[in-house]
């Protein structure tokens, strides 16, 4: 298994090497234009430049192939095939690439894998390593998912302050719908931990409608946490409705096991199922 420290140090080494190779290629292109007429008249500038171009194209092709190495890993992680995902990511991290974005994406995928494996501190360290790099235009789309993953990992690891810092960076940014959903889930989780009940009940219906678009566990947890907020603010009608919806999606015992705070919605959650029984 790839260790977090070795993955990060390999990333740094490869990024430096990539920058060095790119710099050398630019220098070689300039030299191909300028030097032959002055020092070696028998060499054509055009042929020398073409040679540099061919090397550049070959490296670009190889880098593009590397980018495909770990392309399937998010799907494998989602399907729970962690060993195959790990092998793909290790291959992508171990192969030279001219593109920074390819390397950074592989490290982000490793962070996703560690999150899936419930190794939240590793996931947070890897996400932070991605965010600490200069992302540039090509890798800029990684910034928001990496920050969301960092916030999520911090919350799961119990670092509420760290999660707040990560979430704060996302405030006011333009997000895609899947990013909005992840941010909402993390924000509701964070606000429930700090007891910001009034804030949680603000624009509740928008939150509920968005929660309906989340994956089943996230939808159930988000609505259950909103139910607690409504209960704490003496809105039992809303609280009961949301709690019943959450229970129709996921067994309350599983929700309580993940977030003990939810035991106040289902005190006997472990003892019985709240969903209507089917005969």
């Amino acid at each position: 298994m790839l260790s977090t420290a070795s993955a990060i140090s390999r990333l740094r080494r490869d990024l430096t090497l990539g920058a060095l190779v790119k710099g050398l290629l630019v220098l070689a292109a300039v030299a191909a234009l300028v030097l032959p007429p002055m020092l070696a008249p028998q060499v054509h500038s055009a042929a020398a430049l073409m040679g540099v171009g061919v090397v550049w194209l070959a490296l670009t092709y190889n880098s593009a192939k590397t980018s495909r190495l770990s392309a399937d890993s998010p799907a494998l992680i989602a399907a729970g095939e962690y060993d195959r995902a790990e092998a793909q990511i290790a291959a992508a991290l171990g192969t030279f690439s001219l593109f920074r974005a390819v390397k950074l994406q592989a490290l982000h995928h490793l962070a996703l894998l560690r999150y899936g494996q419930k190794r939240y501190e590793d996931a947070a360290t890897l996400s932070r390593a991605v965010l600490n790099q200069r992302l540039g235009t090509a890798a800029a789309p990684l910034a928001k998912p990496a920050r969301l993953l960092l916030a999520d990992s911090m919350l799961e690891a119990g670092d509420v302050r760290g999660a707040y810092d990560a979430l704060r960076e996302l405030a006011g940014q333009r997000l895609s719908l899947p990013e909005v959903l992840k941010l909402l889930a993390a924000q509701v989780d964070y606000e429930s931990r700090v007891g910001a009940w009034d804030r949680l009940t603000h624009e509740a219906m928008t939150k509920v409608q968005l929660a309906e678009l989340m994956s089943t566990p996230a939808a159930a947890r988000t609505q259950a946490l909103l139910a607690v907020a409504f209960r704490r603010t003496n809105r039992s009608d809303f609280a009961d409705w949301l709690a019943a919806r959450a229970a129709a999606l996921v067994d309350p015992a599983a929700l309580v096991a993940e977030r003990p705070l939810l035991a106040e919605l289902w005190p006997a959650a472990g003892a019985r199922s709240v969903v209507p029984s089917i005969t």
Partner: protein
Amino acid sequence: MAVPFNPLFGPYNAGFVSQAVPPSPAAPPAPRGFLDVPYLLSASEPRRPVPRLWFFLGGMLLVMASSAAFSGVAGSGRLAVEIFSGMLMAGLMAAVVAASAAAVRRVRAQQELIEGVGELLQLRRWAEAAGQLDRFLSAPARTAGLRVQGLIYLGAVLARYQRFGDALTVYEHVLAADAVDAGTAYGLRLGRAMAMLREDHLVDADRAISELKRAGPTGTAAAGLALVELYRDVKTGHADDAVTRFAKVLPIVRQHLGHRASDAWGLVARAYDVLGRTADAAAAYRTATLLAPAVELSRRYPELLKLEGRYEPTYAPPEAA
């Protein structure tokens, strides 16, 4: 002398005039309907790409040949030829890079548009999604992949607008093109089977469901298939089968379909109702309407209209209603 007005042959007879004068080649095309499927299928075909790489290689060879032809020139003339050919080569490279960057930008813009349509569909903003798809598919797509994604979304919009015949045409077209991965193809086949059921093509739907079962689906695909089978059972009056199936598939439906589990609860409520098990029907209908509004469920499955008024739905708090 004043010319008497003749309603048939006079200048005010627009029909006559339009028959007498042949249409100009530059006349605007006849207006088409909204989401005209045959038109969109043909108009969205991508154009052949410009062979930029061959132009670039040809240009390079030309520059090298010209440079070699003038290499016999002596002294400062040779230096000028070398510098000029080097600059031409650099210019060619810059032109290829600029053209490629522009092409990538155009593809990225279409990609963003298609992603936006996907978000609109998730947010159930059907009219906006339909408008954007109509515009997008009215012109050649930049890539075949973007076109296929647009067509998949078009199928979803058409199904929402209860145009199941058109949705079937789109699904068949995409599946025949064999341009999607196995998971997406399975999802499309599920959509096609559901559209067949809605169009009352019951024999075809049954055959399609058998094929889907043979593929041995897991996860979300299995949950989707369970839903289609439940609907088939309810639609064909096999209420007993629906109840038995529901008990078996409830765990995967809950796990993978999220709030769309309401569909399964609604369908089993109808099955209980047919069997006269009113208490079970009432409980299932309450759960169904807890997860989705009754009006939405009846829109998806007209058979559930019969439950409205017979059983109490779960009422949401006033703010949520």
